[in-house]
C-alpha cells in the first residue's frame, strides 16, 4: 500500500442555456423518465434560444464555467417560428470569437432537443461533460494560434 493521496478526477462546471419550450422540457422529460446523466451542468431557462446574448456566454466563462451548453428547439420547430436560427447564427460567430480569445471551441456546444427527447438530452450532456473533462479546466492563457481556427468548422448539429 502506498501513501499516494487519491487524485480526484477533474469535475467541470458547465452552464447550460435552454429554451422554455423544447430543451428545458427535454430536461424535464429526462427527469420524469429518471434518465441519469452527469451532474456538472447547471441550467438557465430562457424563453427562446434566440434570447441568448453572447454576453451571457462570455460572462459564464469569466465567472468560472469550464464550458457552456446552448440548447434550443430543432430547426423548424421553434415556438417563435425561426428564432433558433438566429441563435445558431450567433453560436457560430461566437465560437470564432471565443477561439480568438483563447477558449477552445470544444467548450461551447449547441444542442437541439425537442420536448420529447429527454434521452437525447441526457446522453448529450453526459457526452459533453466527458469532452470537457478531457479538455481540463478552463485555462485562459491568451489567444490560441491561428491553426486552431480549422477546428471551428464543425458540422452544424441537425
Amino acid at each position, binding site marked *: 500500500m502506498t501513501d499516494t493521496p487519491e487524485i480526484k478526477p477533474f*469535475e467541470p*462546471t458547465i*452552464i447550460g442555456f435552454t429554451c422554455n*419550450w*423544447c430543451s*428545458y*422540457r427535454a*430536461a*424535464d422529460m*429526462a*427527469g*420524469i423518465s*429518471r*434518465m*441519469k*446523466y452527469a*451532474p456538472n451542468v*447547471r*441550467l*438557465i*431557462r*430562457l*424563453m*427562446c434560444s*434566440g*434570447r*441568448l*446574448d*453572447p*454576453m*451571457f456566454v462570455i*460572462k*459564464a466563462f469569466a*465567472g*468560472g*464555467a469550464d464550458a457552456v451548453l446552448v440548447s434550443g*428547439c430543432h430547426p*423548424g*420547430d421553434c*415556438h*417563435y*417560428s*425561426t*428564432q433558433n436560427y*438566429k441563435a445558431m447564427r*450567433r453560436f457560430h460567430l461566437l465560437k470564432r470569437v471565443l477561439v480568438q480569445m483563447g477558449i477552445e471551441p470544444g467548450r461551447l456546444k449547441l444542442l437541439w432537443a*425537442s*420536448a*420529447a*427527447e429527454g434521452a437525447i438530452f*441526457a446522453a448529450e450532456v453526459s457526452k459533453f461533460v466527458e469532452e470537457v473533462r478531457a479538455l481540463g479546466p478552463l485555462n485562459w492563457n491568451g489567444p490560441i494560434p491561428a491553426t486552431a481556427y480549422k477546428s471551428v468548422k464543425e458540422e452544424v448539429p441537425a
Partner: protein
Amino acid sequence: MDENKPKERIGVYVCHCGTNIAGVVDVGEVSTWAGENLKKNGVVIARDYKFMCSSLGQELIQKDIKEQGLTRVVVAACSPHLHEATFRNACKGAGLNPYLCELVSIREQVSWVHTDKIAATEKAKAIISGGVARVEHNEPLEPLRVPIHPATLVVGGGIAGIQAALEIADAGSPVYLVEREPTIGGHMAQFDKTFPTLDCSACILTPKMVQVGNHPNITLLTYSDVEKVEGYVGNFEATIRKHARSINTKDCTGCGICWEKCPKKVVDDVFEAGVGYRKAVYTPFPQAVPKYPVIDRVNCTYFQKGTCKACEKFCPTHAIDFAQEDEILNVKIGNIILATGWQLFDARRIPNYGYGRLANVFTSMEFERLSNAAGPTGGAIVLRDGKTTPKSVAIVHCVGSRDKNYNNYCSAICCMQSLKFAHLVHEKTGATVYNFYIDIRTPAKDYDEFYQRLIEEGTLFVRGKVAEITDAAFNPGEEGKLVVQVEDTLIGKQRRIPVDMVVLSAGIEPRFDSKETAKIFGISCSASGWYLEKHPKLDPVATMTDGVYLAGCVQGPKDIPASVAQGAAAAARILGKIQQKEISLEPIRATINEEQCSGCRICNSLCPFNAILFHEDKMVSEVNPALCQGCGTCIAACPAGAISGTGFSNQQILSQIDGLLFLNISKKEVVA
C-alpha cells in the same frame, strides 16, 4: 456600509417532495447552507419542508411573507412547468406580487437524474444560489389581459373533430370546421361495424354529420386546407384555402346526375381503400356532408383533354363551373382544435407478408370496405376475383406495430378490430378463422367480454408473430392457397397454415404530412410523430402552445370512444375560456428605451411577429406589446442595449450565472 446591505428580504424554501428530492439531495444541509451562505444576497430565512406544494407548505410561505416581511421568494422543488403557478398564487395570496417568486427545479434537474448524493446536494445548492441571485432582480409584473375571440377553428372532420365542433356550436359559439376531403366523416365513415357492440358505423356517425352540416353555428369548409396561422391564444388568424370544387354549391342540389353521367371511372384509393371505383366527379359516399360533389381535376377528361363536359350537359341546375378557382379565406379565431387523425400503416413495407404481390392478402381497411354493405361488394366477403367466398381466413395482428423495424408503439385498436373481423367473417361466410397474435389487448369496457365471445364462437387463436405469407406450396394440401408460416409459441412448434384469404391488421400511423401541419400550428411532435400534449397524464388535451388543443388519434392511437371523449374534452376546455371573455397572458415582453435606441433597425427584421415598429419621425423603434411574444431575440441583438425584457432581463440572467457559479468561485478561492 449601506451599499453592501441587501435590498431584499428573501425566503428560500426547499421541498423534500417526500423522498423524491430528499432521497438524493440532503435537503436539510441545503437549506442550512442557503440560510448561512446566501445572507449577503438577502436571504433572511431558509426552510425545508416535506411537501411545499401542500396547503401547509404554502401556508408556511405565506406566514413568512407576512411575519418576516419577505419581499422575494425562492422555492426549490419541481419543474416550474409543474408548480410555478401554485407558488406564485400562494405569494399573491399573501400580498406579494406573484412574479417576485422564483421556482428552481431540484427534482427534474437534480434528484431524478443524478445518483451521487454529494454531487447532487452541491448542484442543488448552486441552483438555489442561482435562483436567489436572479430573484433579487425580479420585478413586480401584472399579467396582460386580452379579449378572446369567441370563434374556434377545428381542423379535421373525423369523429373527434365532429364531436368537438358540435359541443362548441351547441353551447352557442361559432366554429369553423376545416376538412381536407370533400366530406366530413373521416375514417369512421369507412368502417362497417364498430367494436365491441357491433353497431353499424354509418348509423351512429351520419346523424352527427348531418347535425354538423345543418348547424347554424358551424361554418363547414370541406375540400380545404389551413395554410397559415398567425397570432396567439384568443387572437389567432388563420388562412384557409378552399380548393375549387368546380361545382357551384349555391345551385347544386346533390341530385347525383353528374356522377351518373360521368364517363371516367377512377380507382378510389381514399374512401374505398383501393377496392372500389368512383367517378371523376364524385361524392365519396351517398351520405356525404356536404352533399355537393367535387370534380377531381387530375382525372377529369375535360381538364386533361379539353373535351367531355358530360356533367355540365346533364346538370339540371347548371351548377358545374369548370372555371372555378381556389378561394382564400382569412378567419379570426380564439382557439384551435387539431383533430387531423391518422393514416393506415402501408403493409407493402413488410415484403414477407406479400401485400400488393399476393392477390388475396388484404389490409384491414380493404376488409372494412368489403364487409360494408355500402361497399363495392355490397357487404360480401369475397376474394380478389370478386366472387369466391373464402373457406378459411387468417387475420394477422400487429402489422407494423410493436415491431422495432416499423413502429415500436401498440396501435391500440388492432386487437379489437381483428376480433371484430373474425366475428364478421364467421357470421357472413362460416369460414374457419385464425387470429395470429403476439398478445391480445382488450382493456376497455366490454372489450374482454367480446374476446371471450369470439373464443366461444370458435375462432382459432395462434400465439406467434407471423414470419411469412407465401403461395409456394410444400404439399398438395397447400396448392392454390396462401400459407401462413408461424411459430406457435404456446406449443413451441413451427406451423404452416393454408388459408384462402389473409387480412393484415395494419397499425395506425401519424399522417404523412403531420410534421408540416405541426409547424403551421407551432406545436411539437413526439418521437413517433404523434402530437405532443402538454402533460401525458394530467393534460392530454392541451398543447404547449396556448390555445391549441388536440383531439383523437393525432395525439396517439386510440379508439372511437376515446376520440369522442377527447373531442368533447377539448371543446369543454375552450368553452371555459370563451366564457371568461378575457385571457391573461404572461407579461413577458420586450420594451425599447427610446433614449438609448440609436434607430439602427437591427431588431426590426429579427422579430417574427412584426411587433417592432419604427418611428420615422423620432428615428426610434418601439415594441407593440400586443404582438410581442417575449422570445427576447431583439434584446440579445440590440447593439445599444436599449431593449429590455420583463421576466428575463439581462440583469436577472447575468446574476443567475453568477449565482450558479458561486460555489465554484468560493472553492477555487480556497484552492488558491
